[in-house]
């Protein structure tokens, strides 16, 4: 056993209202510099939809992540020889058009315009070329709320496996639906960006597993951009270095959650430490598609298990990290309750950000003036919820997103979530029969205590329960290399050497 600590995350999609506050918080702190205008380390997508950059999930085009070749795990992008051959010309980069051309408006004109017959307007100005943009064709959340759009929703790659009929239903006005998918760097346990970088500029931090990109070592080969299947590394065209989400490590080191977590209006975000067995990484990443989620769950270890604690200590993981892991909300969602799932496990990077899938709005019919929930089906989740196979967004779609196509896993998650609702309804409204309740516990593979705990952490968590930021003992770590007294006032944020183009 080779135990490592990872600061992990859970996004509870049922709570996301798509307000983009997280994106703005991130943008204001990190990507408001020249060359980063188009970057959204945190972005919120509408699903079904094509996301940012457009259709990023289409690895046939973008070549991100890993694949299994003859039973062995290899980068989809290229091997070592491929990296050498393509080093001066990376053929798998998204174009600016696939992200979008960033722009601002000529606000000054509103004030300076000479007096005329018409109101002055503020025209769009490209932040890259500085020229006026006549038509803005796309933006970072261009398909925001466009569920059912014949251009965007229909081109969601996760719909590929649906039948023609199922797809058509999705664009019927009555059925049309969508949900939000906020995305940041997954700080994967098997990161594609790290594997793809020829310069060794990317690394996974030992103490907390945050994946970082050294601005000093980056040589702008941009293989990380292709290698990351989530397209979460970006190239700064001004400094000539790539950049990515740093999980606000300066905030984490001072005990605060990352800005996107902190600012989240729906309080959908949870942060906590997971202990995992690094010896299982390869096995977990090269499991069969259907087993990927289970393998990743198996990789995550119980922080209360004495053997795990001993192994963690042997690896130099400090005690406070272990206690933090024991309080971790992420561990509960992912491992104990098994209701949080990795996004696109089939990319085989072992993402350490997990999603609680959203409950789809019920499907109801208005018949003869009576509004009636469509509850036919085997689950018997009446009277509140339509049966799973009648879900507005087909289960297959959710399985593509969150369980590498394994519908059994996602159905299990949904059953448990539904059971929690039935459990709460019985407690609050008290109109659920005991027999029905018992049936729900069995179907959801849960019990009243667990259902309560899930409810509490979902709906009523405190700040401290959502964010269990480990004490990083930064001062202690710093003391090992520099004298705090001699160097006080010299540390801080920012670069000691400004990242710059060298040529």
């Amino acid at each position, binding site marked *: 056993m080779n135990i490592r600590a990872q600061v992990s995350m859970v996004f509870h999609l049922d709570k996301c209202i798509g307000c983009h506050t997280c994106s703005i918080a991130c943008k204001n702190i990190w990507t408001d510099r020249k060359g980063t205008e188009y970057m959204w380390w945190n972005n919120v997508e509408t699903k079904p939809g094509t996301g940012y950059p*457009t259709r990023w999930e289409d690895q046939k085009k973008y070549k991100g992540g890993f694949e299994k070749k003859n039973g062995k795990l290899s980068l989809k992008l290229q091997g070592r020889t491929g990296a050498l051959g393509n080093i001066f010309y990376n053929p798998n980069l*998204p174009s600016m058009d696939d992200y979008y051309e960033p722009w601002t408006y000529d606000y000054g004109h509103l004030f300076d315009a000479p007096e005329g017959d018409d109101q002055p307007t503020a025209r769009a100005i490209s932040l890259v070329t500085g020229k006026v943009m006549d038509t803005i064709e796309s933006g970072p959340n261009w398909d925001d709320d466009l569920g059912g759009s014949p251009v965007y929703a229909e081109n969601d790659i996760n719909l590929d496996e649906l039948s023609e009929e199922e797809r058509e239903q999705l664009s019927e006005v009555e059925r049309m639906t969508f949900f939000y998918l906020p995305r940041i760097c997954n700080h994967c346990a098997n990161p594609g960006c790290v594997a793809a970088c020829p310069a060794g500029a990317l690394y996974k931090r030992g103490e907390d597993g945050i994946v970082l990109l050294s601005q000093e070592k980056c040589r702008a080969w941009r293989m990380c951009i292709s290698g990351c299947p989530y397209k979460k590394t970006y190239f700064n065209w001004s400094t000539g270095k790539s950049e990515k989400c740093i999980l606000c490590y300066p905030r984490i080191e001072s005990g605060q959650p990352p800005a996107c977590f902190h600012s989240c209006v729906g309080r959908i975000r949870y942060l906590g430490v997971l202990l995992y067995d690094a010896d299982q990484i390869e096995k977990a990443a090269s499991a069969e598609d259907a087993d990927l989620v289970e393998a990743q769950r198996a990789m995550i270890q119980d922080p209360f298990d004495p053997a795990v604690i001993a192994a963690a200590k042997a690896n130099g993981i400090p005690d406070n990290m272990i206690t933090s892991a024991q309080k971790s909300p992420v561990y509960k969602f992912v491992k104990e309750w098994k209701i949080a799932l990795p996004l696109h496990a089939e990319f085989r990077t072992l993402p350490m950000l997990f999603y609680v899938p959203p409950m789809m709005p019920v499907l109801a019919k208005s018949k003869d003036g009576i509004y009636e929930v469509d509850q036919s089906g085997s689950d018997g989740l009446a009277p509140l919820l339509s049966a799973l196979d009648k879900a507005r967004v087909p289960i297959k779609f959710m399985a593509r997103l969150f369980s590498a196509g394994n519908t059994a896993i996602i159905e299990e998650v949904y059953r448990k979530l539904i059971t929690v609702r039935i459990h709460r309804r019985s407690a609050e409204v008290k109109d659920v029969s005991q027999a029905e309740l018992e049936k729900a516990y069995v179907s959801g593979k849960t019990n009243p205590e667990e259902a309560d705990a899930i409810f509490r952490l979902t709906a009523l968590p405190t700040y401290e329960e959502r964010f269990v930021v480990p004490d990083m003992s930064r001062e202690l770590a710093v003391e090992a290399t520099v004298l705090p007294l001699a160097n006080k006032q010299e540390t801080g944020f920012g670069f000691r050497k400004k990242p710059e183009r060298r040529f």
Partner: protein
Amino acid sequence: MRTIKRSAVNNGQALEKAHLREHKKRAPAAGVKTSLLFWTMWLILPGIMILALAAFPSRAGAQDISEGEQLFTSKGCTACHTIGGGDLVGPDLAGVTTRTEKDWLSRWLKEPDKMLAEGDATATELFEKYNKVPMPNLGLTDSEVASLIAYFESLDSGGTTAPTSSAVTLPAGDADRGKAFFMGTTRFSKGGPACMACHSVAGIGALGGGNLGPDLTTSGYIVSETAFATFISAPITQTMSAVWKGTPLTEQEQADLYAFLSKASVAQREPSALTQIAMLSGGTAIVLIAFAQIWWRKRLAGVRRPMVERAHAKRGH
């Protein structure tokens, strides 16, 4: 006898005359208040100058003529010219001073290559006539040129008799062996460097040889056996003499080289090495680009725009 119209206008003389006219106009006005002595000076000084000028050529003459005679052989003119012995590679130089103007002649001897490049009418005419063999620039100094012209003048006025140039005959040469010598695949017996190190010539492939020395395809020295043998056995130019003085070629080597080189020049002249290299690199670039197109044909060429366009096309927008 050939009659050639000399088109070169003597600008220098014309200017001089104009200046003289100016002086004549101004002289009386200046002399109104001047003394007799001044007037005598004005008469005497030009007189002395005219005398000196008249004496100068005749004084230099004797010395120049013998020097010119020497230069004519030492500078290798005999490789291509006779005087009164008929045309060789270049024209018979008997009567050259009567059929050409002195200024043209002296410039020609100094820089025949430049004059040909500039398209001087007379030079071009001669060039066409003598099988498009250009006369090489032999690096003569101004005084050497003057000596040579003095020598030609004295010959044409019957003052000196022309030397009889002897035709050189080489043993039978083998063009293939010559090519091997040229390209360095066979070493010279005295160990001299391969000609290709400094020269290129038609018939040794597209990339040619070095370009320290001129391309030999059009060299006058490879037009006749005599010209080649005379030059190569004792080259008079700076670099060539330095290279070959210590390691002379044997007669057989000279013959083989001549067999090879003379064939190259007779053959239709190939495009210059420069155009060949340009074509070669252009071709390579096209091949590489084509290769890259195939190699990278699956590169990512945009996702969003095609997707949106396809969706619009599907709906007939």
